[in-house]
């Protein structure tokens, strides 16, 4: 029996609308404030603390590829700013950490505004984030924070911002918003959103296929994404393989892990007739076990797959790194391949038949278990590829990268209609755009929350998703 979102007849209508309204109000109430940098690679929890910040050049462009060394009781880690100038370092022990910015890695012509504050010392507590700020630009420019300033440039309020930075915060929220909007920025965010969405789609398509064929919501799918990124990291950094080979290795390892997982766990559970809800709780346990296994072996810090500074290309108003462009290209080609597989090949048609109705597919001579195995291999391989590309896009991976992306994948899959492979693609792109473009209106550390709110609203208004069709149960 497939699980479908169904509306309880007694309850549609007014209460639903009220719910949307209340949720929206609740969310909007929480919104005002200045936009700021979010933390991409580090989620603080009971065993992890984060140090983070955003580095921007004097003219408020993100400074990419700046290397920072973090040294303290938990050991030494290195962080590098990503395509948006953000950097983050995870530490597993509380205490005083020294953050040193390597001035040689600053973009050409840039210098620290306060060179005497490099290195900086920050106090880190587990389960929380601490900011460390390194403003760039000539010392005299400090007071010149003009009216057209990008709100992202406001110092990270989490940090113990030095007094001389105060001038930058000055602009009132309304003014800075109207002043900050520009078509260039819109284009930049839309491009980032598109790249992010397409990469997310690689992972989400697998999630959707697995749900479609087995009815299982796989909460451990995020760990397949992390696996790909970590294998690529190992292949490049420890075995010295070229990036392309490392990517292929990661995808192969991912595919193998999908085969093993299905053969070792899920096939057995299906054979034992363990229900899908039970299996779902098993995936949660698996996800926990895998996440902490990654952390056990690779620590809580950011792992950089490649350590060279990315080359930035300028296309009109948009700045994009060459790696992101290649990633986008690879992802699009692969997704087109998946589409061809599903629509054009015999086994692909069998997959869609199983998605539609496993019992009927079995009755018409399709070996359901073989299709399911194939879907696991394919889904895990796609997730691994997504992980490698996402690790390159975010400039670093870490033990919980996949975990952080999992809910966005679910949002994408639900948005497109659970079990609909093409729905997952469309949903991912929408979610990617929402995540990146919501920066324009809400504080960027709430951008994931915006995507999740969309998930809830979709379930409320159109539970079958954009591309799903309404189903009847009974």
């Amino acid at each position, binding site marked *: 029996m497939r699980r479908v979102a169904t509306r309880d007849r007694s309850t549609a209508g007014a209460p639903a609308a009220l719910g949307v309204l*209340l949720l929206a109000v609740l969310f909007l109430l929480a919104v005002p404030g200045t936009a700021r940098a979010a933390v991409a690679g580090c*989620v603080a929890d009971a065993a992890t603390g984060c140090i983070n910040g955003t580095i921007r050049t004097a003219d408020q462009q993100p400074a990419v590829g700046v290397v920072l060394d973090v040294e303290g009781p938990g050991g030494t880690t290195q962080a590098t700013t990503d395509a948006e100038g953000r950097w983050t370092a995870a530490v597993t022990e509380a205490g005083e950490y020294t953050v040193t910015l390597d001035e040689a890695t600053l973009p050409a012509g840039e210098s620290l505004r306060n060179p005497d504050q490099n290195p900086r010392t920050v106090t880190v507590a587990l389960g929380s984030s601490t900011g460390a700020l390194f403003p760039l630009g000539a010392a005299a420019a400090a007071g010149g924070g003009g009216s057209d300033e990008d709100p992202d440039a406001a110092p990270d309020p989490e940090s113990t911002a030095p007094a001389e930075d105060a001038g930058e915060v000055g602009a009132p929220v309304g003014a800075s918003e109207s002043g900050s909007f520009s078509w260039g920025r819109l284009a930049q965010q839309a491009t980032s959103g598109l790249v992010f969405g397409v990469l997310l789609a690689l992972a989400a398509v697998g999630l959707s296929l697995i749900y479609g064929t087995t009815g299982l919501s796989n909460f451990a799918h995020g760990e397949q994404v992390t696996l790909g990124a970590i294998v690529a990291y190992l292949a490049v950094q420890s075995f010295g393989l070229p990036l392309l080979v490392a990517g292929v290795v990661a995808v192969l390892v991912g595919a193998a892990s999908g085969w093993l997982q299905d053969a070792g766990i899920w096939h057995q559970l299906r054979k034992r007739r363990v229900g899908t809800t039970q299996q779902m709780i098993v995936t949660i346990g698996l996800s926990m076990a895998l996440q902490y296994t990654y952390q056990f072996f690779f620590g809580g810090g950011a792992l950089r797959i490649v350590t060279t500074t990315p080359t930035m290309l300028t296309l009109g108003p948009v700045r994009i790194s060459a790696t992101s462009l290649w990633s986008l290209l690879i992802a699009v080609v692969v997704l087109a391949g998946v589409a061809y597989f599903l629509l054009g090949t015999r086994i692909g048609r069998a997959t869609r038949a199983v998605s539609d109705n496993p019992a009927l597919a079995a009755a018409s001579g399709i070996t359901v278990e073989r299709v399911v195995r194939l879907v696991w291999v394919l889904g895990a391989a796609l997730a691994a590829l997504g992980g490698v590309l996402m690790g390159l896009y975010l400039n670093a991976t870490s033990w919980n990268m996949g975990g952080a992306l999992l809910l966005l994948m679910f949002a994408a899959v639900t948005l497109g209609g659970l079990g609909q492979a093409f729905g997952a693609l469309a949903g991912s792109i929408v979610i990617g755009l929402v995540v990146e473009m919501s920066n324009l209106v809400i*504080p960027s550390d709430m951008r994931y929350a915006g995507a999740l709110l969309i998930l809830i609203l979709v379930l409320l208004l159109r539970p079958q998703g954009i591309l799903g069709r309404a189903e009847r149960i009974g």
Partner: protein
Amino acid sequence: MDWSRILVNVAGEIFAPTTAAYALAAIGLNVHFGLTGLLNFGQAGFMLLGAYGFAISTIAGWPLWAAVLVAIACAAVFGLLLGIPTLKLRGDYLAIVTIAAAEIVRLVGRSTALTDLTGASSGLRGNSYKDTFQDASPLPDGTFALGPFEYAMNASNSWWIRIVGWAVVALACLLVWLLIRSPWGRVLKGIREDEDAVRSLGKNVYSYKMQALVLGGVIGAVAGIIYVLPRAVQPDSMGRPMTFFIWTILLLGGAATVFGPVLGSIIFWVSLMLIKSVMRAGVPESIMRTEQIEQFGWIIVGVTLMLLVIFRPQGILGDKKELAIDVR
């Protein structure tokens, strides 16, 4: 290896405030899942809201009883908001929505836009909201040792929080025991087993589910208060892993039982502490570093959850006939 110190530490976990808080949160989840069959994967969100409600209103100068009421009200409103869209959905949709809603609470709470209210990701320091609770204590100041267990009377990780925490757990157990035997509880169990059958008897299933969701959420909010009283309100320490621990505790002890959550919580924290302390003392630094032992503990929790659900879904106290997880 200092066995006596390890044993004292491990035995201390039996009645630690954290154990009580998790037991209480699991009791709330038991009302959702064990009684009604709702797959709530956002229990940590209820706890976090309760903690915020309590801490923020106390910091605003409200008395203890009012702060507790605020926490309860926060959870009730959250339960209602969450219930309106989710109770119409089934199974894993419900799980995804509740997990997402809890994440939204955490992300909004840790957002720097709300720094003045929630302290953003560094949270609210314990000392800023502990006073009203500590002042309510009838116990004298100082420390008190009961056998090898020595804690402060009133401050932070105190006897006072232990007494109050476990008293609340006992009350909640009593409440669940009464509910299970009441006509109201029988309707909930009916919904868990076969929603359509209950609906055909003319019961308003939606309303019953909503009541169960709010009640379990309120219990979760009180658990959140007890959880943060000996420490600080830290949004990032009350995220998804916390919800998963609560689920492990509930399934370990046995869902749909009265004492399952309490037993589960005690076993969970005692064995985790035992494993960690023994490994810290016995495994040399060269084989496993201290923070790796921490992670090893969580790996075991994950594997335990998997094995438990596969091989003994009814837990220690549960009855397999009483609760099949996959009723629908």
